[in-house]
């Protein structure tokens, strides 16, 4: 699996509207100036690394949610974080732009969308953690998460309805997902947050494994339910929030990758599953990014269209082949 991952990474770096020969790429990396240096260092490499970080983060988030809720349909977006981010971005894009003064300043700032997405998912995140402390069981938390998404999504629809056409386009482009516009500075922030989220997830392996047996057995094995749920929610929040902030709401990866990985890796131990889904998520997103670049064309497809177009049939095929879906 790590071989596939490496292959996809190299392929993603080298192909695009301008193909880079591998020898030129290596010399560019050594610091020798070639005509490809700028494309490689300022565009291709950050894009590929973003794919890796985002894919790994979303897949881990999906795994955590599926385990916590013992529900194969859970994904990193069930907590409502992506919708929270969408709402905030929508507010900034639609209202900020039509207003004058501070609103305008927000929109002209290149960080503004990432910033507002972070604020949006952050607020929902705090709300969900507060609710998680209050409700006792995971199913309630799952349903509340879905309801929060429903509310934020409908608010977004309202904003879209009253918004101006050109703002609508800006917003739609954000919702399509994008891994190609991250700078090295943004990458550093993304890396730190994703790394913390994955560390929290990995350190929670024991409680995650225990959740698989259900709340009562987990408690019987000495797991502190509220505390462990808190950390799992924090981990997922960091992973999903960071990715949504920088890349937009990337659909599907978080839901599908854990299932695909489980078909290959026959384990229920999260110490094995977490590294596997990181690798799987990174590979899937790299593959999808490769496919956004239509062969022999300069036209680039939206990432979200590709993730679902590629991923959904693969999952359907895998499930039909193995005749079961599991958590």
């Amino acid at each position, binding site marked *: 699996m790590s071989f596939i991952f490496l292959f996809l990474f190299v392929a993603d770096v080298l192909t695009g509207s301008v193909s880079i020969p591998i020898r030129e790429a290596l010399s560019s990396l050594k610091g020798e100036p070639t005509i490809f240096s700028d494309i490689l260092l300022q565009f291709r490499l950050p894009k590929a690394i973003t794919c890796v970080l985002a894919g790994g983060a979303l897949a881990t988030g999906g795994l955590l949610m599926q385990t916590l809720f*013992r529900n194969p349909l859970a994904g990193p977006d069930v907590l409502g974080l992506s919708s929270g981010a969408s709402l905030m971005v929508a507010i900034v894009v639609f209202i900020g732009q039509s207003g004058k003064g501070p609103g305008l300043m927000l929109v002209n700032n290149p960080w503004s969308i990432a910033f507002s997405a972070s604020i949006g998912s952050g607020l929902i995140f705090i709300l969900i953690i507060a609710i998680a402390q209050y409700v006792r069981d995971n199913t309630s938390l799952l349903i509340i998460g879905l309801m929060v998404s429903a509310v934020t999504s409908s608010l977004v629809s309202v904003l879209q309805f009253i918004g101006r056409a050109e703002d609508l386009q800006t917003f739609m482009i954000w919702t399509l997902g994008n891994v190609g516009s991250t700078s090295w500075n943004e990458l550093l922030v993304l890396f730190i947050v994703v790394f913390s989220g994955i560390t929290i997830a990995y*350190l*929670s*392996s*024991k409680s995650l*494994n*225990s959740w*698989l*047996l*259900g709340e*009562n*057995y987990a*408690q*019987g*094995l*000495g*797991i502190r339910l509220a505390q462990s749920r808190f950390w799992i929610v924090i981990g997922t929040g960091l992973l999903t929030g960071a990715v949504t902030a920088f890349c937009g709401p990337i659909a599907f990866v978080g839901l599908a990758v854990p299932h695909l990985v*489980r078909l290959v890796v*026959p384990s*229920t*131990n999260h*110490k094995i599953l977490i590294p596997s889904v990181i690798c799987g998520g990174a590979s899937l997103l790299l593959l999808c990014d490769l496919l956004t670049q239509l062969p022999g064309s300069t036209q680039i497809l939206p990432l979200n269209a590709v993730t679902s177009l590629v991923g959904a049939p693969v999952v359907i095929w895998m499930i039909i082949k193995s005749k*079961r879906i*599991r*958590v």
Partner: protein
Amino acid sequence: MSEIKTIAQTIDLSVGYSKAGKVLCLFEKLNLTLAAGELVCFMGPNGIGKSSLIRTLAGLQKPLDGNIHIPKEKAVALVLTDKITANHMSVYDLISYGRYPYLNWNISLSEKDHALINEAIALVHIEPLINKRLYELSDGQLQMAMIAKALTQDTTILFLDEPTSHLDLNNRVEIMNTLRELSRTAGKAILVATHELDLALQTADRIWLATHDKKIKEGIPEDLVLDGSFDQVFQFKGFDLKTGKVHHKAYRNISVNLSGEGHEYLWTKNALERAGYEIGKNSQIRIHIKTSGSSTSWSVTSESINQEYNSLAGLLYSLQSISK
């Protein structure tokens, strides 16, 4: 058992739920004990709160009032009715969960942990299953694996909630026998919540019987049968606990005279009573059971008939024609 060693007890324990000021009390002021090496069956009708008491004793649920004295942390292992949804887990992995209370976040099993896991597997005789996935197991095998998981926890106390429901007779007997053996050989205190009277009466050292006044009556099975406690709680309809039989009405008003010995006599009597005949001394219909080696035959003599049958079905069929 030379001396009784109490390892757990409750003092004025009240069990139930309180939510938003409303209190639902299931049991009140319980003073119960559990001793090492004994198998206690906790009986009561469905819905009386057996699971809630087990959850409370195990510390999964707060008591309404009173105290539970259990030696130290990590002293209780559980087998609950909860379904395991992660059914592609391997049996060995499931059993290894028993070591979790002793492991840190890194959950790496030591040689000693593996030894304890294998010991538990050997105790419940499921060696051939350890590499299977949970979805490949029958209900009885899964229950055995859950018991092995609980044993791996290496605790002095074991609580099981309805471990034999949904199982066939053979599996039920096997599980209860395994538990009884464990209580004796490993010196564990084992509490089994069950509503299956027949098994409990034959295997339990002691019974906790949940009564309708929110109390629990303790005693050995035979005492509780003879003093009528079971009849009060379960309010049997057409079942006589003291004989262990379902009560049959002799609706045919025909009495037959039966002679014979051993199991054959008991089962013939069973068949006749079930079919509505009364077994009496002074009757014109006489049935005699003859056994020679492994074959059994029944001879019937009356005014109109004198015949021999080699199955009870044949016997009942001809009796039916006589009574017409």
